[in-house]
């Protein structure tokens, strides 16, 4: 496999992981809480694509707005069920409640869709463009395009709009933000919704090439978490870079060494980064006030 092909395949897989990691980062930024149901919410997007695809018979690119709206509503529901009731409890309570949400979602998928693996519709169409020495899958090209657009949009919203400034204010100090009139709880619910919509779009995009299954989100939660740790806790750019690094190990490194060795290498790299730069590649060093 040529170097160009490795880079293209890594970029395609990394784009999906980046969408997963970004939704994860959004919630972390807004609440300081880790959403362990995130991978299962990715699968919810995949199942939404399967459902809408078989119902409407349209390519996924036309279904994405529908998936995003459905997932936004689901994300807000998760916020009300698993986060708000535990707001004044220790962070570990939210970890457990989101974990339980994930388990309930997994079993819900089995009840609604059955335990088997499902494939969703392609973004545009199947097939590939042959540009020797590489072959560009149309699905992968569309995935990179959709992910790039959403990442840019999220960056603009977060850093170039009043909404983004308010969201960042809530994440830094919720009580102070409320004191100056920012509707913190509404913004937290919106953040859960937007983060889940991103997760859902990632799942929908994954569903054609990589299938969906009730427990398929577990590993995605782990990859999202690793991407955020590598990139820097709370950093949007860091999450994208972390996701691309994971994909480079899974696609690139596994081309030259056995797959299991490449996976081991990823975790060794994670340990090295944590040792040398605990705040992650793009994270800022912070000190807690006593």
């Amino acid at each position, binding site marked *: 496999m040529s170097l160009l092909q490795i880079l293209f395949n890594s970029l395609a897989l990394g784009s999906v992981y980046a969408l997963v990691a970004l939704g994860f980062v959004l919630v972390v930024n807004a609440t300081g809480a880790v959403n362990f149901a995130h991978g299962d919410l990715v699968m919810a997007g995949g199942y939404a694509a399967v459902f809408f695809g078989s119902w409407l018979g349209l390519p996924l690119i036309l279904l994405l707005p529908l998936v995003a709206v459905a997932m936004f509503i689901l994300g807000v529901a998760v916020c009300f069920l698993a986060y708000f009731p535990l707001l004044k409890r220790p962070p570990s309570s939210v970890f457990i409640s989101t974990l339980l949400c994930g388990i309930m979602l997994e079993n819900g998928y*089995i009840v609604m869709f059955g335990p*088997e*693996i499902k494939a969703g519709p392609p973004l545009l169409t199947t097939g*590939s463009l042959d540009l020797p020495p590489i*072959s560009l899958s149309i699905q992968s090209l569309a995935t990179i395009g959709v992910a790039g657009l959403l990442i840019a949009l999220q960056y603009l919203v977060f850093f170039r709009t009043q909404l983004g400034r308010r969201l960042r204010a809530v994440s830094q100090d919720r009580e102070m933000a409320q004191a100056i009139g920012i509707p913190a709880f509404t913004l937290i619910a919106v953040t859960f919704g937007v983060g889940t919509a991103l997760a859902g779009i990632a799942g929908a995009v994954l569903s054609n*090439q990589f299938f969906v299954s009730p427990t398929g989100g577990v590993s995605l939660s782990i990859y999202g978490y690793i991407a955020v740790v590598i990139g820097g806790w709370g950093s949007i750019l860091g999450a994208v870079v972390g996701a691309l690094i994971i994909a480079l190990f*899974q696609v690139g490194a596994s081309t030259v060494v*056995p*797959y299991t060795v490449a996976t081991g290498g990823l975790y060794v790299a994670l340990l090295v980064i944590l040792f040398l730069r605990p705040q992650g590649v793009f994270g800022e060093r912070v000190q807690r006030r006593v």
Partner: protein
Amino acid sequence: MSDRTIARTRPGMLRHPIHLGLGLVALTVAPAAAWAADAYLPIVLPVTGFMSVEGGSQRNGALMAIEHAPASLKAEAPVFDTGTSATGAATALDKALSEKPALAASVSVFGTEMVAMAPMAQDYQVPLLTISGLAQLTETGNPYIFRFLPNDREIKVAHARYVVEKLNKTKPALIGDTTAYGQGGFKLLQEDFAKLNINLAMAESVEPDTRDMSSIVAKIKESGADVLVIHTVAQPMALLIKQARTAGLDIPIVTSSSLVEPQATALFDPAELKSTCSETPSAPEARATPEISAWADAYEARFKQPPDGLALGQYDGVMMALSLIAGGATTPDLLAKALNTTTYKGVAMTYKSNGKGDMAHNAEIVCWDGTSRIPKIAADYSGDELTLK
């Protein structure tokens, strides 16, 4: 004292004073009739988790057998979910067997769960009817394990022989996965190809949650392999075949039995399955005999889904047990003895224990021609054909 502790000290059905009383009544009045009226055979397998497709088929087969039980029997078979985990399996089996005295239990297809459940069969002294292929299950001297699908040690011989002797391929690329099932079959295939004097072009294992297979496909291409041999669970297998075909890898592919599951073939366009074959203990979807055809029709009518070999294997296993119970094997020990000594003609094949609890000794290779998701039987192996010296 827990029921399980009692079970250890008082084997069989007489593990509780109440059971002892019931047993004495049964012995003095009409023992066979008493058991026949109330045969408890719990079903303990993965209904949730990543083996739930296979577990679902297995459950359907067991339930269908219970519904087709001999008229003299009133069988009770509640379903206990193991959740695709070893601890879940042990807990579920303990619960199932401690609720009331069981004559036998239908247990998991998943080898990892079976490793946890097998010692409990000895604790409770209750026969376990399984379709797990994990070779070691029947190689540890446990007299309560009865397997109604071929041992992987046998079926992998069919897998390797078909590649070498029927397809005449000499440079296989072997891909396994990192589960206990995947590694067990991977090692057996390596041994079998070596016995057939075949050097592998490459051999590698992937994790079951691997999504992008492009690096594996590239390695297969670069190895110069003339056939791709896969032994994995369903998801990585489906992803590898799809991505290999998309990448233009047009060598024949011969897989382990997960591909025969209708839910797996549903992921493919028929054309994508061209030149793909799979080993399977039986292929009811091919409807090769009138008996299998009738069973497959009944299964589809009952469960509204296509039949598969896992369901048929478990069906035959439970039906054999029910027939023996109806014939007088009215305690777990009598049933275990009868399972060990009886030859039973089931729907898929004839079952006979090899003395270790391996009841099934047939394997088929089915192939897809690219026009349909229903495979055709390409080769059949049985008896000595499933052993390599």
